[in-house]
């Protein structure tokens, strides 16, 4: 079934809220931090599925809720770990997160645009 344009799935909505939380704590964040945030905040016993998390992040980025970039390789090398992909929430994400439910996000976005 094709979903409504702009609507978010429950997992995307959770990720978006977790992302906004992380953004408020310190700006940029990476995939594992989101999984951890969801686990801590929503009391989920298991970490979000790897494929589910990164597919949802891809979609959120495509819809303009998140922007992303690769971390400087020198920093990763210095800390002796793989390079992280850093995410940041956009103004669009801040306008809908925490004030809406997954199904009314298109409405919230429409209202936001009309009030500008």
């Amino acid at each position, binding site marked *: 079934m094709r979903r409504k344009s702009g609507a978010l799935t429950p997992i995307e909505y959770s990720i978006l809220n977790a992302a906004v939380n992380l953004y408020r704590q310190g700006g940029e964040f990476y995939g594992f931090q989101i999984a951890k945030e969801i686990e801590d905040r929503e009391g989920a016993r298991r970490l979000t*599925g*790897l494929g589910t998390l990164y597919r949802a992040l891809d979609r959120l980025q495509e819809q303009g809720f998140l922007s992303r970039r690769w971390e400087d390789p020198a920093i990763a090398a210095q800390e002796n770990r793989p390079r*992280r992909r850093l995410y940041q929430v956009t103004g669009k994400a801040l306008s809908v997160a925490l004030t809406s439910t997954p199904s009314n996000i298109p409405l919230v976005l429409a209202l936001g645009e009309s009030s500008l």
Partner: protein
Amino acid sequence: MIAFLVSTVLAAIVGMFIRTHALTITKQIVMGWVWLYSAIAPKEDRDGRQAEVLSHLHELINNHQKAGYAPGEIVVRILESWVMGMVDDVAWCIPFVPGVLADRVKGWGDNLRHYRIPAAMIAGVATLGLMNYSFFSSPNNQSFGTWLFANTIGIAITVLLWKYNHPLARRIFQAWIGIAMAGGVAVMGWMTIHYQLYAGMTFKILMLAMVAVLPAIIVVDKSWRQRLFRGRWWLIPICWAPIIAGALAGSLLIAHSIKPLLEMWAAMALLVVGMLIVYGLIALAAYVLCWLGIRGSEGGLRLVAAGIRHLR
């Protein structure tokens, strides 16, 4: 007893190894899966996904180790998050399938076009093989001369097809085809006139019309001959007349048996012309069929590729 002891010791060693390297092994399994399903994606997406999952696993292991989790527990957490996301992993790579499939199908089409000449050469070799098989399986006409002649023609055709891209080979092949077809036209003309089988007036007119039209088609179809004959239409019958007349005269000589000596030479001439025509037509048919098959397949594959892209 010995088997029991050996298996117990082996199990203990394997167990210790797994226990020591459990995290590394689990990480490698998950990365193997990521490598597997992301292989179909374009390079940028594939590299991004692999790097991101590798980083995630590293962070997960580090985070849980700092929190005091045992390696076994961390393994379970990794496996859980891996298995739970498998459906989404597959869903992630599905949109890339049509593009990759279309490119692959298009590649097959390009390869077919690239290997048109070798494929035609294979057809020539196959013709040669069939010819030799029919020659040795038949008790008649098993003379060394006939065999040598047949194989020489076959090999010559094969080499010409193989080197068809070379201008000289192409011209030899085309000239040879022209001669063979002229011979065929001559034989057709002779048969039309003499054989009772073709006594029906309608059929005779049709055959004679074909005999008259075929050389013209052969001549005007070639670009280099077009240049030669442009404005000099009278050259066409002048060039073709000796070929047709020669083949016709040879045939008539045999048919009417003017003199025994002449008959022998005429029989040999007819044999040569006949074999040239038969083997030439077989090779030509094989080449044309092969060419049509390849071009048809190539076109079909391109159509499939376009269809897949459209569906995407």
